[in-house]
């Protein structure tokens, strides 16, 4: 789960990291009022769950409250990489001497957390990683002992900091890692972390992603979820134990298993179609689940055909077929349905479906091709 900058900043600050305090505005009026309260130059920043806000024009400096209002007017409602801006953060301007990047994330290959730092702050780190990888300092974190003080200091020295700036920097590294662990994050990031003209450390931005699997122990974080930023259908699906991701195509997919669901999308594409979604109906594939899945898929007005792809494993094919039949009794599906059913008791299942007026194939390729055709014909 992603958090907004202002939420992450609040959490960082709770863990002892000095952040650039600001306030959230949802209207230009509010932005102007906040800017007036703060006094002086302010920064108006789009709050969206995506990077690259700066490049997209979602971050603006404003020298007066009126300018802050204008900036907010421009930014609010903006579409940044598919995210509509509904909130802006209005924060005091800062006298920046140097900018750095500092982040903690998981190094999947090493199965260890890693501290990443760079003297190239304020730039997208992926860009630095791609173009000047030698400019990124990486320090693996001991899985048992956490970040050692010497490691935090060493990163500082490698960044070329002056000796009198080391202990302040090391403290931020430690706290950013502590935040990462305490909050079950998969990313905590400050970009840029700045040294101000007065020689103080300040987190000018804050980014944080929480491990979905660990949300059960962080009800406070779950409460920070921005429902505007997340697809309502996806959330709804999650509550039913269904993995659902909305895509742009017109062929709705209902599949059991995440890997098979991806492969099914790929098959649709391979046969000239475009999948409307990723959908893993989960283990059981009961009538309830399948009905729910139909509901999710048909809620998308773009969908012109539905491809059901089930490989019966522990869950028997006849049970799944029964589920499909029952679900179709309950949900009114207006678009053509193509079913592929293989594996355990698949034959019985296909028979059962035939009795309910649904022909089922045994081949995933065939089913994908049929679904593409059906969508075109519809």
């Amino acid at each position, binding site marked *: 789960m992603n958090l907004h900058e202002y939420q992450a900043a609040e959490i960082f600050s709770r863990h002892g990291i000095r952040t650039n305090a600001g306030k959230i505005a949802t209207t230009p009026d509010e932005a102007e009022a906040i800017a007036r309260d703060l006094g002086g130059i302010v920064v108006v920043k789009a709050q969206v769950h*995506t990077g690259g806000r700066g490049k997209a024009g979602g971050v603006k400096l404003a020298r007066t409250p009126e300018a802050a209002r204008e900036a907010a007017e421009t930014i609010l409602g903006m579409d940044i990489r598919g995210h509509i801006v509904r909130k802006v953060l209005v924060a005091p301007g800062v006298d920046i001497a140097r900018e750095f990047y500092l982040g903690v994330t*998981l190094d*999947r*290959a090493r*199965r*260890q*957390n890693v501290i990443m730092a760079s003297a190239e702050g304020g730039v997208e*780190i*992926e860009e630095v*990683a791609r173009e000047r990888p030698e400019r990124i300092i990486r320090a693996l974190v001991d*899985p*048992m002992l956490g970040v050692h003080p010497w490691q935090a200091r060493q990163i500082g020295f490698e960044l070329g900091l002056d000796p009198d700036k080391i202990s302040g920097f090391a403290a931020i590294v430690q706290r950013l890692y502590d935040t990462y*662990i305490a909050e*079950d994050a*998969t990313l905590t990031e400050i970009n840029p972390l700045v040294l101000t003209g007065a020689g103080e450390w300040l987190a000018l931005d804050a980014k944080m992603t929480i*491990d*979905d*699997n*660990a949300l*059960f*122990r962080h009800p406070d974080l779950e409460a920070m979820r921005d429902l505007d930023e997340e697809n309502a259908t996806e959330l709804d699906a999650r509550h039913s134990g269904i*993995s659902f*991701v909305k*895509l742009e195509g017109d062929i709705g997919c209902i*599949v*059991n*298993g*995440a*890997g*098979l*669901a*991806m*492969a099914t*999308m*790929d*098959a*649709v*594409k*391979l046969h000239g179609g475009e*999948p409307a979604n*990723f959908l*893993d109906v989960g283990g059981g594939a009961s009538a309830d689940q399948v009905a729910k899945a139909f509901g999710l898929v048909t809620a998308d007005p773009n969908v012109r055909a539905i491809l059901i792809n089930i*490989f*019966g*494993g*522990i869950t028997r094919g006849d049970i799944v077929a029964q589920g499909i039949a029952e679900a179709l009794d309950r949900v009114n599906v207006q678009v053509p349905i193509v079913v592929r059913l*293989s*594996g*355990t008791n698949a034959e019985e299942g296909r028979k059962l479906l035939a009795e309910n007026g649904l022909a089922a194939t045994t*081949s*995933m*390729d065939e089913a994908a091709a049929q679904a593409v055709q059906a969508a075109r014909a519809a």
Partner: protein
Amino acid sequence: MSILVDRDSRVLVQGITGREGSFHTTQMVEYGTNIVAGVTPGGRGKSVAGAPVFDTVAEAMAETQPNVSIIFVPARFAPDAIYEAVDNDVPFVVCITEGIPVADMVPAYAHVRQRGSRLLGPNCPGLITPGQAKVGIMPGFIHTPGPVGVVSRSGTLTYEVVDALTRAGIGQSTAVGIGGDPVIGTSFIDVLGLFEADPETEAIVMIGEIGGSDEELAAQFIQEHVTKPVVGFIAGRTAPPGKRMGHAGAIISGGSGTAAEKMAALEAAGVRVVDRPSAVPGAIKDALHR
């Protein structure tokens, strides 16, 4: 031969009296797996599908000397089950449990390594050596003994491929599901190394998906260490960036972990990468007859 499990494997089931644990224990026993014991705290004296239940792994170890453990306990307790297994010297632990927080798996993985044990999973279907032992939740009947090693990050997609192989008359030496989480105990590389060393395995099918860089690392390993033919398939070519595709680990982040990158890396390493699961048997036949 085969890798990791065979008819001599002595299997312990942790969480044996739970719904999942008892169901799959019965399934495994029916397949012929040698389930020697189960553990459920407070379950001592019970029995599931003929296997005696103990309160602790220590007891089960003392009484029945298992050398493989399979874990069916819920996510909040699964890391403790892993620690209990390896601290009691179970050399190979298969964790089926889905939904374990990454923060719990990072130290657990490190600890398993330190203890010198091997962990498969979590969030995996387990593994099967057809005709000998099924230590997992896959449908046993689709498998048949033979010369092809299968390794995969996915569950049903693996069944799909295995079923296709079996229907094409091609059996499997062992089929291993390594799991879909960001932190897993056994990687592609580990399994590829085992298949390479296994005299009965003549060709390998590797099924990857988006997210992480295990496939890229596997490609490098294949180039350097694998002489047997490898057929690859990568799921998720149409997956959008930044979205978790079911598996916690199946996500393209920061523009890396795409299917295209993985396919390119594998192809560069000499792997025959196919564009659909149904193409696997044909590619394997080509490889075996070359």
